[in-house]
Structures are given as C-alpha cells and as structure tokens.
C-alpha cells in the first residue's frame, strides 16, 4: 500500500538524532512485545510479512506518532485478531480487568495449541536456488509501477524507474502475497541498482547509487528501443 511507512525519499522528518546512551528497551513492555512478535512468527501464528503489514495498516497519523514498539504492539494485536486468535472485544475486556486488578493472572495451558495452518514465514526464507531466473546480472530492468492496496516491498520511490541487476539472490517466498495468505509464490529475488539521478533527477547527490532487493514479479524488461 502507498502508506506513510513507505518513507524513502520523504522530506521533513528532521535531523538524525543520535543517542549514545540509549537503551535497547525503554520499558519492560517493549521487550515483551518484541518477544511476543518473534514467538508468534516462530510458532507460525502469522508471518513476518503480515507483521510488517500490521504496522502499515495503522492510520497514518497514529503510525507516525507511535514509538517503534507501539507500532509492533499494534501489529501484534492486528494479526492475532486477523487470525481469529483473539477478538477486539476480548482485548478491551481484558484491559479493563487488568486495570481494575493488576495482579489478575491466568493458568498457562500445556501443550500449546498448534497453528493450523501454520503461517510460513519469510524469515525461514530461502526456498531453494533459482532454476531459471528471468534476468541475469547486468540486465537492465524497470521496476513496475504498481500501487496495490495491500502489502508490497517495492517502494514508491523506485516504481517506474530503470535499474540494473547486480545480484541474483535465489528463490524466496513473495512477501506481497505471503502477507495476505495469498500463497508463497516462490520466485527469484534480485538486487537491482538504481542511479541516484534516475531516482531523484537533478536533486540527486553526486555519485549516488541505491540498491533494492526486488522479486521477479516487481520487474519487467525495459521497452524495446
């Protein structure tokens, strides 16, 4: 989706703020959210692509105001609701219960319920080596001008732009479909290098190259000349 998460090339976000004394987590809940996300993905409750989509679907103004792990939390809630594991009403009710009674606890169950079907993740990624890739190192390609409502890993700034294949990474599940339960659609992933001037015109800095890893579905040969 053409969302605010797709921020490559945007202006207005200010200087880079470097905090040398930073902590990895600013509060205990942040570490717990991260654990729940990693565990949910490892258990096949949802996959990493769906986890990213869960952040992308946050309303833009909310997304830009939410700190990093609050975005993870929103995605975690979104995906467990999307998969039918919990409902929004259950979440609201449990928040009320915990607000009234912070010491409220539940009995863990063993063994854990399996994910059925498991949501295969891209983190397990590499399906195999490419048998017959459409493009080879050195080929010119165009990143397609796609504007899907759902998840995509082809950012806006590269769409319609011409680049050159620099690496053939092998076959991977296609994030754009895998985020939506529309299948792994395994296909070759390529590294594509774009000249700065191709991406940004005269606004590009001197001697600039940007590489993206794109799936074969994202690419097409340039028009015949």
């Amino acid at each position, binding site marked *: 989706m053409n969302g605010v998460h797709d921020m490559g090339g945007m202006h207005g976000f200010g200087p880079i703020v470097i905090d040398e004394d930073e902590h990895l987590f600013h509060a205990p809940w942040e570490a717990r959210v991260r*654990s729940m996300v990693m565990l949910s993905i490892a258990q096949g409750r949802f996959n990493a692509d769906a986890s990213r989509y869960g952040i992308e679907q946050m309303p833009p103004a909310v997304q830009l105001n939410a700190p990093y792990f609050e975005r993870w*939390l929103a995605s975690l809630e979104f995906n467990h609701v999307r998969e039918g594991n919990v409902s929004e009403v259950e*979440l609201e009710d449990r928040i009320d219960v915990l607000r009234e009674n912070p010491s409220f606890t539940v009995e863990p169950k063993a063994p854990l319920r399996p994910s059925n079907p498991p949501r295969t993740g891209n983190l397990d990624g590499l399906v195999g080596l490419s048998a017959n890739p459409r493009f080879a190192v050195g080929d010119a390609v165009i990143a397609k001008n796609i504007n899907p409502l759902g998840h995509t890993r082809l950012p806006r700034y590269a769409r319609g732009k011409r680049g050159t294949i620099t690496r053939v990474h092998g076959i991977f599940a296609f994030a754009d479909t895998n985020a939506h339960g529309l299948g792994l659609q395994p296909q070759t992933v390529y590294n594509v290098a774009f000249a700065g001037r191709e991406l940004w015109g005269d606004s590009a800095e001197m001697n600039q190259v940007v590489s993206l890893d794109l799936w074969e579905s994202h690419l097409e040969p340039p028009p015949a000349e």
Partner: protein
Amino acid sequence: MTADPEQEPYVALRTKALESLLIEKGLLTEEAKDRQVSAYEMDIGPLAGAKVVAKAWTDAEFRGRLLSDAGAAIAEMGLATGTSLVVVENTPDVHNMVVCTLCSCYPWMVLGLPPTWYKSFAYRSRAVIEPRSVLSEFGLELPEDVTVHVWDSSAEQRYMVLPQRPSGTEAMSEDELASLVSRDAMIGVAAVEEPAT
C-alpha cells in the same frame, strides 16, 4: 493490592492484556516468552560483526568467501546467520551504507539489535535521497568522487558493510583490530579510525 491506574501506561496495559489472553488460550507460555527476551537482549551484539571484519582484514581468502557467500564464511567461525546475509566492501572508490526505508530490517545476526536512530523516520526517509547529508550528520564527509552506494533492505537479504582497514594497523592482532570496529562502521555511517599512537 490495586495499583494506581495512572501508573500503568496504556501501552503496557495493552501488552499485558494480549499476553494474558494468549497464555489463557494456549498460544504462549511464560517461559518461552522470557527466554526469547534474554536471548535477543543479551546474546548478540556488534562484536560478532567486528570479529568478522577483523578476520576479513587479515585473511584475504576468507574475505573473498565472505563477499561471495557471507553465511557460509561466517559459519566457519562458528557464528550462525539466520537469514541471507550479504557483506558489501568499502573501497577507496565506493562507500556503502545500509538502511531499510519500509520498516527497520537490520543485520541483527551480526550486529545485535538496531540503534534507535536506525529505526527513526529521519534516517529511513533521508538515507536514500540525501545519503551524503546524512553521513555528514554522523561526521563522515566523503569526497565527491567517491560513490555512495545505499542498500535498502527490501527483501530477506540483510546487509553488513566491510569497512576499509585503517592504516597504522599492520601490526595488530585480529582481536585488537576487532576492538576498533564500531557498529556504526558496519552500518556504513562511520569509518574505522586510525588508532591514536
């Protein structure tokens, strides 16, 4: 027994509520959750990457294997890389830097958890359109004829930069060299400085 609700931020309450429901429904255990936290928080850090860099500086054949298949090369050292790692080499002509504009993908298997600035909207938005301007905010000014190659981590590949070895380090051991290599140098927003003599 009742804590002041003002004390508990809403995000912490939401976290606890979800955790409580997932445990109740048999989708999560307390122990697994705690194990996961400690593994990520404690076990991995940029030292793994620094050791890889130091070895590449001192062993040309290893460097060759690292640049062609980083996962296999790093496995020789007894380190695991969970997903597809790619190491890109800085040269006098090309400076590499790593970003993820769409989210915050990061080579955690060699560098640990990312710094906050890496996840910031400012870094994510600017690294691909004005990398030199970003680098200069980190104190790194590159000559105009050096190409800045930005790697936007849009798929499963994770990128680590192999910085240039500074001069004046010819006599150093691998461990000494590793101690020079900062996390920022392996993200590509810093150079490895010549050690003070």
